[in-house]
């Protein structure tokens, strides 16, 4: 059950935007859709929302073909937009009605989400009087107000301050707890790592990596050593033929070929009575994997 894309392709004039991609979101949780600019993420999202038609392949939701008429997903587009002159309440009510809600339920949902997202005071105002961050929260409300089973969030945290980011993160966690399916597209790899169980990385319309994020990372060898000492150890690092990625105030981020070599370095430092405050061997981050897969 859930969302399934099989061999989906889309070509625009002279450009293959999406080339034969397949993936499945078969249980509630957050699915990460990654890719560089122009990789085909938005086209994929638009196809699975039924906004544009695919050339080939099949998209199903709970076994039924996805068509514009039959789906009622929630969508926070990357291109943020509100009616500037219209009161927030009126536009939320408008979209809630279009999503099939009756005015009474819509009113209750507006009040509930306005409280959760801390935008109650802005509800009677026209949108143009709100900051960009608050407008974004209003658009987020538009995406989830009708309690959809599947929500697509395209760059949900861009432009938000840390306080509002935290509010939105908590809402996403609550949605997952409520059994919602979420597809999140973002360039903020930390957010993807924080929320996503499964990911798909697109490059020039093609799938370059997909699967369970934990399993993907486990498939990679450790490649970084985080080290903190009481004195400068540049000479030791050179001696072990390692490359410093970053260093500041005797804190080092070092590229490593093997865990064994890192332990040998630690042994040497201890032998020479250098105090080691931090020694962490790390596997590649999603950011590293992303750059490896799509970096030219």
């Amino acid at each position, binding site marked *: 059950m859930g969302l399934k894309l099989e061999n989906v392709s889309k070509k625009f004039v002279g450009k293959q935007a999406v080339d034969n991609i397949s993936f499945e979101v078969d249980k509630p949780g957050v699915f990460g859709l990654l890719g560089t600019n122009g990789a085909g993420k938005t086209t994929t999202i638009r196809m699975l929302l039924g906004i544009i038609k695919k050339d080939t392949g099949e998209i199903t939701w709970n076994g039924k073909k996805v068509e514009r008429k039959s789906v009622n997903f929630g969508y926070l587009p990357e291109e943020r937009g509100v009616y500037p002159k219209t009161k927030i309440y009126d536009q939320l009510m408008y*979209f809630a009605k*279009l999503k099939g809600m009756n005015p009474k339920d819509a009113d209750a949902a507006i009040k509930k989400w306005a409280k959760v997202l801390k935008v109650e005071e802005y509800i009677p105002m026209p949108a143009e009087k709100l900051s960009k961050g608050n407008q974004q929260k209003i658009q987020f409300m538009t995406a989830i107000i009708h309690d959809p089973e599947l929500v697509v969030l395209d760059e949900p945290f861009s432009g938000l301050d840390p306080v509002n980011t935290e509010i939105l993160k908590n809402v996403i966690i609550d949605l997952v707890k409520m059994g919602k399916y979420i597809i999140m597209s973002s360039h903020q790899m930390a957010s993807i790592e924080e929320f996503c169980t499964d990911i798909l990385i697109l490059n020039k319309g093609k799938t370059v990596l997909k699967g369970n994020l934990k399993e993907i990372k486990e498939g990679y060898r450790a490649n970084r050593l985080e080290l903190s000492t009481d004195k400068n150890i540049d000479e030791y690092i050179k001696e072990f033929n390692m490359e410093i990625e970053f260093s500041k105030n005797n804190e080092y981020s070092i590229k490593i070929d093997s865990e064994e070599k890192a332990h040998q370095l630690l042994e040497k430092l201890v032998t020479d009575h250098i105090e080691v405050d931090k020694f962490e061997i790390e596997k590649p981050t999603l950011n590293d994997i992303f750059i490896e897969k799509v970096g030219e």
Partner: protein
Amino acid sequence: MRDLKTVIAFTIKDMAKRKSFIISTLIILALIVIGINIPNIMKAITGDNENAGETNILIVDSTNLFEGTLPSINQMNLGYNVQVANNEVSFEDIKGRIENKDIDQAMIIEQKEDGTYKLRYIVENMTQVAMVPEDLMNTINTLYTNLQISKLGLTPEQIASLSPNFEFTIEQTEEQEVSGNLFVIMMLSIVLFYAIYFCAYQVSSSITTEKTSKIMETLVTSTSPRTIVLGKTIGIGIVGLIQICVIVGVALISAKAFLDPELLNSVLDMSMMTPYLAIMTIVYFILGYFAYALLYALTGSTVSKPEDIQSANTPVAILAVVGFYLSYFTMMNPTSELNQFAAIFPISSPFCMPFRIMMGIASTSEIILSIVVLVITILIIAQVAIKIYSNAILNYGTKMTFKDIVKVYRDKNN
């Protein structure tokens, strides 16, 4: 259907609540009421006495050429309040009396050396009165002629026979009778054109606003493009129709309340305004509005920036202007084949047919054919506009060219 109602209701509410819409409507209404009241305002400024509006004129007849008959002009209701002086009055004296507002104008009757008479008409400023009023000249000529005739000792019958009382009538050889005041027809034609044009233009501007405010993606995932285009078009059309009805209603009520009935009847023959004509005018307004509004929906969806909207709408504006002028100029000769064509051709029929109906020269078959052609045209435009709109609204790049639009339309996958 539920979504369509929601889009219509939102569009109506959104448009009617806009400050710019409310203010512009109030300004138009105020201008209409003020415009109609100009004669009353002028009257109030010049004073509300019995002679208000009359010109005080001093006629200096020092030779008594008219033998005391000049005061009879006051009984002729020509708008002159005549004072007569049978003594010499100098130009300087007259100037002083005009400056003191004692009189407005003067006329000095002088005998020339050859025995003929010269009438000097004296006004304060020749930019206001550039020539001697024709009615005054005719009256004075007639007064003198009658004075001389009366001295011939003719019988009343003989005198009466000297003043012919011919009745002039006009008839036509063509069987089709044309009625109606051409001035009213042309004025209403202009009103209908602007009503259709500006209401339809709002659709384009509304769609571009949704594109530029980036709300389009949320909107198209909430309902179908067909519902958005139709809902928006119907909503704006309803607001436009109500606005026009209010404007026309206020104009008619103000005209009836404030204008002199004689003046009103001479300009606006209300006997022409039958319920049938009113219904047909509304039908053509609705059909004309739909044809142009859907074309504007198409052009509005092809631009992403407000500054591009003008150039994108130019082809539709040209089409509307051509349609209007085709209708307007052929109305000079309403029985011509070109006017018949303009009443059926869909770009001009909304501006032309209501006035052929008003003039009583449109046959039922002609009206049915005109409506059928217009409806078919609207259906074709709607089909094309909705298809282009569905795909162009998510295009945030540069303005689409005609080639791009054709490509989008032909693409079977869209």
